[in-house]
Structures are given as structure tokens and as C-alpha cells.
């Protein structure tokens, strides 16, 4: 998959909370049409970077640029029509149905004098269909299983119909079957033209699904490029401090990280 020029770019960001600086001088270009995975050990700043790209966190220095214009200069709803986000934590109000919740992703397309249109209904139907949640549409969100609920949150992000979709650890707390199911869904969306950027915990998911991998440690980017170049035994040890061998995934031929057994 070749990467076209980036629509979403981070230029020399300094990121942090209150007085704590998480990352300095961070520059990233999100390849348009690609599937970018951001990996790294805990507290390396990967989620912070994603929050900055999503405009949830304003950088202390530097700028996030969308389509050649500083993210902060886009009206919030305009930005939201271009960049969607699946946050790590979200709460559903008590008693809300799946269809209603997914419909709330249409907010950036609505104005207070024209709240809901047939276009919105069509977008919700499509999002339900893409996430295979149509059958759940009239169920209450609080009755669903963890895997179903996560698909519903994805559907809400899809209803936003943004060309760039940011995912913050989308598979955490799911069992392995649901993790793979969700990653396959993101890959399918990416093939349909959605630019995907995902913060991932599982290196093997990153290696298998991503067209572009960014490896971070201590608030810095240590490597970025195609999985084959980034996911190497040398780099995994440098970034994660894990001794491993990297073999070819027997299914896909992509790199597969196998941790070494402790030498006795």
C-alpha cells in the first residue's frame, strides 16, 4: 500500500498535562488512505499524541495541521466532519438504545435549527450495517456484552463519516476473538478508503494490519515506516526492552513477535 501525501500532520509538538511534559518536538505525518499503528510501552506518550491529533489536547508548542490549516483554526464541527475518534473511555447514558447512541455521532452534521434529516438516518443505518450491529439497533446499550458494546461505539464513530478515524486502544478489554474481529473491521474500513490511525498495545496486531507503524518511547518517535522495517527484534528490544525473535506470520507473512523464553 503506497502512502499519498498526508492530510493530518503534527509539526514539532510539545505535549503535556499541567506541568508535566510528555513529549517534545514530535512530528508525525499521517499517510492518507493508510492504516497507521502507533505502538510503544506504557506511558510513552502514544495516547497523548493521538489526543493531540484529535484536538482533545492543545499542544503547548507546535501545531496539528489538517488540510494545510492549523487544527485550532477549523471550527470544531468542521474538524469533526473530517476527523473521527474512538476514545478509550466513553459513557452511554442510562437506557439509551443502540440506534440512538449511534445517531449521536451525527452531531457535527447537525445544527440546532435542523436537528435530524434522512441523511442522518441513512448514515446511522450504514454504520450499523458496517459494524454488523443492525440486529442490535433497538436493544439497550447497557444490556450488551463487552464485544457488542465496543462495536456500537465504533458504529457511532463511523456515523460521523469522517475520512480520518483515530482509535485509542480500540481492542483493550476484549477477548482475542473479538479483538481480531474488530481489527478485521478496521482493515475493511481502511480498504474502503478511510484513513485509520490506531494506538495499539499488541505489536502483532500492528504488524499484521498496519501499513505504517510508528514506534514511540519516552515521548519520542524511535522508528516509523512499514511494519517489516519497524517490527524487528532489534527495535522491539530497544523500544519495549523485550528480548524476542521475529518470524514470519504463517498466515499473512507479516512480522510476528515471539518473546524469548528466560534463559536458565
Amino acid at each position, binding site marked *: 500500500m503506497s502512502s499519498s501525501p498526508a492530510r493530518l500532520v503534527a509539526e514539532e509538538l510539545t505535549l503535556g498535562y499541567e506541568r508535566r511534559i510528555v513529549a517534545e518536538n514530535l512530528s508525525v505525518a499521517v499517510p492518507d488512505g493508510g492504516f497507521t499503528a502507533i505502538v510503544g510501552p506504557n506511558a510513552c506518550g502514544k495516547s497523548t499524541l493521538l489526543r493531540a491529533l484529535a484536538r482533545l489536547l492543545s499542544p503547548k508548542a507546535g501545531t496539528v495541521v489538517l488540510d494545510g490549516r492549523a487544527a485550532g483554526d477549523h471550527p*470544531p464541527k468542521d474538524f*469533526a466532519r473530517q476527523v473521527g475518534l474512538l476514545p478509550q473511555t*466513553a*459513557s452511554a*447514558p442510562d437506557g*439509551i438504545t443502540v440506534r440512538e447512541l449511534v445517531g449521536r455521532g451525527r*452531531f457535527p452534521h447537525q445544527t440546532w435549527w435542523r436537528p435530524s434529516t434522512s441523511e442522518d438516518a441513512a448514515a446511522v443505518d450504514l454504520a450499523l450495517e458496517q459494524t454488523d450491529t443492525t440486529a442490535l439497533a433497538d436493544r439497550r446499550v447497557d444490556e450488551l456484552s463487552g464485544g457488542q458494546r465496543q462495536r456500537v461505539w465504533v458504529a457511532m*464513530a463511523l456515523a*460521523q463519516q469522517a475520512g480520518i478515524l483515530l482509535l485509542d486502544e480500540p481492542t483493550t478489554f476484549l477477548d482475542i476473538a473479538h479483538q481480531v474481529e474488530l481489527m478485521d473491521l478496521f482493515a475493511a474500513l481502511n480498504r474502503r478508503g478511510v484513513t485509520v490511525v490506531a494506538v495499539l498495545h499488541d505489536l502483532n496486531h500492528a504488524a499484521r494490519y498496519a501499513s505504517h507503524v510508528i514506534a514511540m518511547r519516552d515521548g519520542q518517535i524511535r522508528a516509523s515506516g512499514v511494519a517489516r522495517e519497524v517490527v524487528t527484534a532489534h527495535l522491539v528490544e530497544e523500544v519495549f526492552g523485550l528480548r524476542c525473535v521475529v518470524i514470519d506470520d504463517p498466515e499473512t507473512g507479516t512480522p510476528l513477535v515471539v518473546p524469548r523464553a528466560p534463559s536458565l
Partner: protein
Amino acid sequence: MNTLLRTRAATTLLLSVALVAAIVMLGLGDYPMSVPQVVRALVDPSTGFDHTVVVEWRLPRVVSALLVGACLGVSGAIFQSLTANPLGSPDVIGFSTGAYTGALIAMTVLGLGLGGATVGAIVGGLGTAAIVYVLAFRQGVLGFRLVVVGVGVTAMMSALNTWLLMRAQLEVALGAAIWGAGSFSLTNATDAWVLGGTLLLATATLRAVAPSLRQLELGDDTSRAHGVRVEPARLALLVIGVVLVAVPTALVGPIAFIALAAPQVAARITRSAGLPLIASAAVGALVLVLADGVAQHALPGGVPVGTVTVVIGGCYLVWLLAAETRRR
């Protein structure tokens, strides 16, 4: 889709029940009237004495009760949604107590009458809300912190109120205490118009910000990702919520429980997602009209309605705390 229809039907039903209750209330009193009699008296000025009794004597009180209940219900729904906490209602987080403090200072320290108490209540209520907001603010106001700070400030204000009452002259203290109980016995047509205007203005503004409120229920991150300007939206909602509790409190005194319970009751009846604004208004109006009916007609000696709602509110609070504890 059918859930949306059911919510709408339940809301319409609640509004109609509140209206019917109000019409029944208009017929109660030393000069009892049947419902058809009341309706005729309402629409036909040539009914003479009936018209005078219904429109001039009873209507302002009943309409005020409806409107105060509606204002408090909506205010409660806004605050509880913003704090994501069924306890995060304006009476719990210090507003009513602060309004009472303002009225007490006006009456007992500055020696002003009821008019002064009205202004004092608004200043006291807004001041307390501002203090709570500033103390709870840290990179945005979070719901839980708002409740905790509010409860703390309420405790301090209660102590201050007791001290103000203790040091006041007996008759002044008595007048202040009666205001502090919350009563419709002195409401007139002007009050009803002021309340109506307030509710209308708040509703018009809410139409614009209610969608943002629905987004805020999903959490700040999701709201921002959907393009909500989170802090301005939250501030606008807080101001509307405060006005909806400030104006009624200033006019009739602090009335507990309605803002706390109406949104929760409305949400359960309509089975809506989150706390419904219009249904909360309907439940608030219905409960307050009925409570005022009980205060006026069922209890001896004309008890202030605030006392009735405090009793119901106490029971509700015990139930709520028990239910919340069981859930943990």
C-alpha cells in the same frame, strides 16, 4: 424509533396529567367547584363570582406552582446531566441554601423587606453557584468534584444561616424563617408572569444548547471529538440551570426535592435515554401542584409547601442512597 415515540407519548401524557391536576386544584377551597365549572369560569368572564375566584384568587397560585415545578424540574435535569450524578441537583450542591443566605442577609442584616429578600436570594444563589464553580474548576469542571464541593459549601452556608437567624430580632427571624420554608401563600399574578417569562426564555435558549447537553452525557472526549465546544456549552447550561432555580427561589423561597427527584422520576416513566428535559418539567409541575394542594387543603392551618416537599424529599433521598449503595 418506537422508543422515541414511546418517550414522546409518555411526555405528552405527563403534561396532560399536570394540566388536569391544576384544573382540579382550581376547584378546591372554601368555595368548591366542579371541573366543568372551573373550565367555564376560566374561559367565560361573564360567570361573575366564579370567574373572580378562579382567575383572580386561585389561578396565580396554581400557575405559579406549575411553573416553579417546571423550572425546578428542568434545572435539576440539567445539573444532574452535567454532573452525571443523581445527587448533583441544585438544592444539593448549595444553590438553595445560598439563596436563603442571601435573603437572610437582606432581611436580618440590611433590614430590607420581601422585595429585598428577592434580590438577596438571587445574589446569594448566583454567588454560591459561582463559588462552587470556581472551587470545583480544574481544567474544566468535573461532575463528581462539583457535587462534593457543593455539599461542603452547603454545610458552611447552613451554619451561616443558623447564625444569621440566631442574631436577628425575633419578628424579623420569624418572617425570614417563613420565607425560608418556601410557600405560595403570597404569590400573585405578577409572580406568575415573571415565572412564565423565565421559563419561556430558558426553553428558547435550551433549544439551542440541548443537543450539546446530550453530547456531554457521552463524556468530554467524545463531545470534543464530535465538535462540541465543551466549556462554553457547559457554562451556558450552568447559567440556564442557575436562572431556572434562582428566579423561583427568589419569588417563593427554597423548595426542596423537586429538582432532585423530578428528572429521575421522569426518566423512569418515559424510559428515555438520559434525563428528559420536557418530561422533567412536567413531573416537577405535577408534583409541586399536588404538594401545594396537600399543603393548602389536606393539612391543618395551611402548611408551607416547602415543608411538604422536604418530607417527600427526605424519603426519596433515603431510597436513592439505599439504591445507590446496593448497586455498589
